């Protein structure tokens, strides 16, 4: 039993965790940036799916992964433009628009999969050029270091860089301050002379770019194919990770690492004959549990602060 547990929790788990957390992380960052401006972007799931399809398509026809990633990001921006116009200009409920975008993404990618790539269900081809992995030769000789630091797909590394870029942009620049103030109190921001419409539109576009990138990573980095509805709730898990981190990119990153960890432990437990469905449930239940616990402790803290005020002698 012990050696079984040891084989589940060995050092290779770290690589596996990062691998399965990256698609969620990129989706989470896409949700973080809009949430800072107080927009709950559930359309991430759909944007990702559009991005994944575009990336596979472009990579297949042009043979260039760079073009594929750029095209996926462009499509992400395009889709987010729709969300932006619908929500900001035409006053649609952003949650409804996000859900519709998800619905549209599933239907439209299925339709285009049939018409452009002439296949149904999924599309795989040797001509799809994936996003390269970073390989450092001399690390290959030492298995531990090789597993820990080597053979990461490009966006598994870039994702972490983006976390800190976003953090810096949001908390250390004037632009970030403005975005956050728009999110906290749009009327005050408007009074202070900020263009709320423009600020919100900006973050929605950036969110689309990140979402498209997440999709490209999913279909060209994480895997090398496109399948119908291949995001399979990863966008929603990204939103969950964003909530977990309270819309802070760094904490959202930690959140997505936890989901990634649950996912990779689950995959290993599966080898020991536990029914796969229970393992697949783990990240979802874990998210709810983590959120509940973090919010419960926040409520308890608030109560404590309140009660200590009540106990002041002059009160």
């Amino acid at each position, binding site marked *: 039993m012990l050696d079984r547990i040891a084989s589940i929790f060995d050092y290779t788990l770290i690589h596996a965790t990062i691998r399965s957390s990256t698609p969620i992380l990129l989706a989470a960052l896409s949700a973080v940036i809009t949430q800072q401006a107080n927009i709950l972007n559930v359309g991430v799931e759909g944007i990702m799916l559009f991005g994944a399809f575009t990336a596979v398509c472009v990579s297949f026809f042009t043979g260039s992964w760079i073009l594929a990633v750029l095209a996926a990001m462009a499509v992400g921006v395009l889709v987010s433009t729709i969300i932006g116009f*619908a929500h900001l*200009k035409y*006053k649609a409920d952003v*949650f409804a*628009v996000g859900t519709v975008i998800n619905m549209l993404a599933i239907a439209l990618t299925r*339709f285009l999969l*049939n018409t452009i790539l002439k296949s149904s269900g999924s599309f795989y081809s040797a001509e799809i050029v994936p996003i390269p992995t970073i390989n450092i030769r001399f690390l290959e000789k030492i298995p531990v270091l090789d597993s820990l630091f080597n053979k990461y797909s490009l966006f598994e590394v870039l994702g972490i860089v983006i976390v800190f870029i976003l953090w810096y942009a949001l908390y250390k620049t004037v632009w970030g301050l403005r975005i956050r103030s728009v999110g906290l109190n749009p009327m005050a921001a408007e009074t202070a002379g900020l263009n709320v419409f423009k600020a919100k539109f900006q973050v929605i576009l950036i969110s689309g770019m990140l979402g498209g990138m997440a999709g490209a990573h999913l279909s060209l980095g994480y895997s090398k194919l496109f399948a119908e509805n291949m995001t399979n709730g990863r966008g929603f898990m990204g939103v969950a990770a964003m909530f977990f981190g309270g819309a802070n990119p760094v904490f959202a990153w930690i959140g997505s690492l936890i989901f990634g960890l649950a996912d990779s432990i689950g995959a290993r437990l599966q080898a020991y004959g536990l029914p796969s469905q229970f393992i697949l449930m783990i990240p979802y239940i874990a998210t709810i549990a983590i*959120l509940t616990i973090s919010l419960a402790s926040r409520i308890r803290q608030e109560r404590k602060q309140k009660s200590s005020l009540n106990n002041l002698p002059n009160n």
Partner: protein
Amino acid sequence: MKKSNYINAILSILVALIIGGIVVAFMGHNPLEAFAQLFRGAFVGKFNFGTTLEKFVPLLLAGLAFAVSSKIAVFNVGVEGQLYLGAMAAAWVGFTFSNLSKVVHIPLAILAGMLAGALFAAIPAILKVYFRVNEVLTTMLLNYVAQYLTSYLVNNPFSGGTGVAQSPPIYESAILTRIMPPSRANTGLFIALGMLVFIYWLFYKTTVGYKLRSVGLNRDFTDYIGVNSRKAIILGMMLSGAIGGLAGAIEVMGIHHSFLDNFSSGIGFDGMLAALIAKSDFGMVAIISFFIASLKSGALAMERYTGVPKSLIDAIIAVFILFATMEGLFQLKRRMKSKKEVDEHVG
């Protein structure tokens, strides 16, 4: 619902159909013929119209479930999950008890389905009122839990043993009678319409309904007048979940006659969107879900006769809903028009 909303819905339908027509034309099909087939496939003939009704029932119930929750200012995105658990509970009652008469067995299975849905919906409600966990997120995640849980059940303890992931067939005594053979439309239609009337009565003619509506309008005020808003929210969510569970129960008892793994494929979400367009007006939910149901059943026929893929119709439905959610889209033009009129009068 305001008159402008109806106009908005109709204009959205037109725009979506025009966009769809253009795409169909680009694919080399005749759009008029495709839409004629779509209409024929939805309404002409017992089988076609029956299929529309068959798809209408779960959509209406899922839409109602979402509308009920939004009346108490809660977004129940988990209708899909409640539907799965309700279906599973109804199927379990259906294939377990063998010596019951139809009069006992059918209500029992339906109640089991509604209870399962209600209890499952109580989880996010409790988490929301006591821990302030966002219900959109929990219900969304719980959908996956429900789907995997039922998938486990039909693959392991409740497997029908046929190699297909489905439960044993339910007994004859739990089957809802089909009303329009050869289609699968069944007496569940009347149950669903009864539910629609009941919900309307409950919300607009009873004290409970008043309490629920006032929670939705202003939670603090509700607490102030002495109604426990927490209890009201939990009750409302359980009601919503029960309707979702009912949708699942009818799917099992009227359509599939056993629990098929993954049978829903987004009924809950489609219903939710119907409710969103209808702005949670119960009557309008029925109209919109009937419209979506006829598009879906028509799409099947259209694919069969013209080769235009069904996924295109799904995309058109999404485009229609996208336009319909944009409240300001068509009003803008009207405002410009009325402004012009005013100018003319002034001039």
